[in-house]
């Protein structure tokens, strides 16, 4: 019998579904054992019956053994879909950092909704008038951007922006073989081959306007650790995995740029901003000299890590 898989996307960009397709040969090997019963990004399936004649009060999502949800929860529609998926899927997987930690969209939590709507939809300079986002036809916003596990029970988290296909394959294979999946649990630094020479006298963080010191053509292991070179690399506070199981080095490091933190915190409940600022402060760096400190939470702004006071009030 084939494993039935249902997929759904909430507030997201379809990058996670692209990662699913990027399984390549592995996907072809897995496909005979899988049956995708619902996956609106890739396969057409109507929520209220093929002709729209179904019960308008109930989302028609077929029952499945595995549910894959990408994206964060920001409005009432996302929440309804997430709950319907939870009710119809035996194992629910949060796919990608938006679903596991809020991802990029949860940066919105540091502003008030009034500010955001004013700036982007009402006050922004434009040549084409657009409808006001207060239009009742749009699903109402929730009090803030939520990660999936803040609203429904999640059985497995696959962070990453997007998650590496190796980890998606491992999760699906583990479910097929009825065993726990083997997923990365260490930090990006643990998988980084750059040369470490000890903590230097980094008095100030360097902006990425200049390339780090390295010899083009030399392997990554010949380059000095970017944090030691003074770049704000989120490697120490970010979950490993972006290199996949066979990669030479973390992906941003391969491009000779500092880690951006896309896999979210090393421990699910960790706070990358707190941990990195504390580490920098303990090394004698003035943290107030860092531009864009909230940017350290650019992938993990849900779970109350980023919160504008107005959103706090809404919760009260």
């Amino acid at each position, binding site marked *: 019998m084939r494993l039935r898989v249902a997929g759904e996307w909430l507030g997201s960009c379809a990058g996670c579904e692209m990662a699913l397709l990027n399984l390549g040969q592995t996907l072809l090997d897995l496909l005979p054992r899988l049956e995708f019963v619902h996956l609106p990004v890739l396969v057409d399936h109507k929520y209220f019956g093929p002709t729209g004649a179904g019960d308008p009060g109930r989302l028609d999502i077929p029952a499945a053994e595995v549910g894959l949800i990408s994206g964060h929860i920001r409005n009432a529609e996302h929440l309804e879909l997430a709950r319907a998926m939870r009710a119809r899927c035996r194992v629910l997987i949060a796919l990608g950092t938006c679903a596991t930690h809020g991802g990029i969209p949860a940066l919105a939590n540091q502003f008030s909704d009034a500010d955001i709507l004013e700036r982007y939809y009402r006050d922004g300079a434009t040549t084409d008038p657009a409808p006001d986002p207060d239009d009742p036809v749009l699903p109402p916003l*929730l009090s803030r951007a*939520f990660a999936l596990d803040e609203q429904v029970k999640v059985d497995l988290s696959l962070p990453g922006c997007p998650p590496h296909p190796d980890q998606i394959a491992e999760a699906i294979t583990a479910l097929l073989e009825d065993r726990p999946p083997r997923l990365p649990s260490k930090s990006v630094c643990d998988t980084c081959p750059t040369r470490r020479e000890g903590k230097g006298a980094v008095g100030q963080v360097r902006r990425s306007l200049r390339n780090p010191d390295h010899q083009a053509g030399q392997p990554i292991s010949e380059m000095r650790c970017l944090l030691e070179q003074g770049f704000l690399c989120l490697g120490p506070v970010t979950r490993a995995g972006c290199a996949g199981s066979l990669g030479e080095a973390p992906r941003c490091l391969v491009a000779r740029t500092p880690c951006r933190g896309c896999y979210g915190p090393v421990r699910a409940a960790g706070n990358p901003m707190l941990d990195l600022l*504390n580490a920098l402060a*303990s090394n004698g760096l003035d*943290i107030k000299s860092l531009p864009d400190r909230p940017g350290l939470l650019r992938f993990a702004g849900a779970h109350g890590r980023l919160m504008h006071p107005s959103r706090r009030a809404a*919760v009260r």
Partner: protein
Amino acid sequence: MSGEPKILAFGCNWCAYAAADLAGSTRLPYPPSLRLVRVMCSGMVHPNLVLEAFNQGADAVLVMGCHPGECHYRDGNRQAADRLAVVEEMLTMTGLEPERFALVWCSSTEAERFVEAVRRMHQTVERLGPSPLRAPAAPGPEGGGKEAEGCG
């Protein structure tokens, strides 16, 4: 405000905790909202501990150590000041008032200074009201959505 405020203080063994002791033996009254935790040095208080205290419902947190230059371990209090600058930053990020946290220096003979710091923080909490993290999340339009606060 609902219920008695709760102020958690981390007091250094050599100065602030001794000052609290002195305040007790000289019968100086201070608000009962204080919960004092003795640590060996203010420099060992990780910002995680402070945020964890807030997440567990503390209305305010004090970290108390020796005066600059008088640290029993030479520069632990200076390190505390460097590290705990992070707390202020994090409180702003999570929508809490930064006044709910303070770093206080007081020597082992300064019982009045200890008492004064606690009184001042108690008044601050009375003015600000209970911590929003303490108030149970009302089931709003999101239904039973729980407010998991994932710091630390």
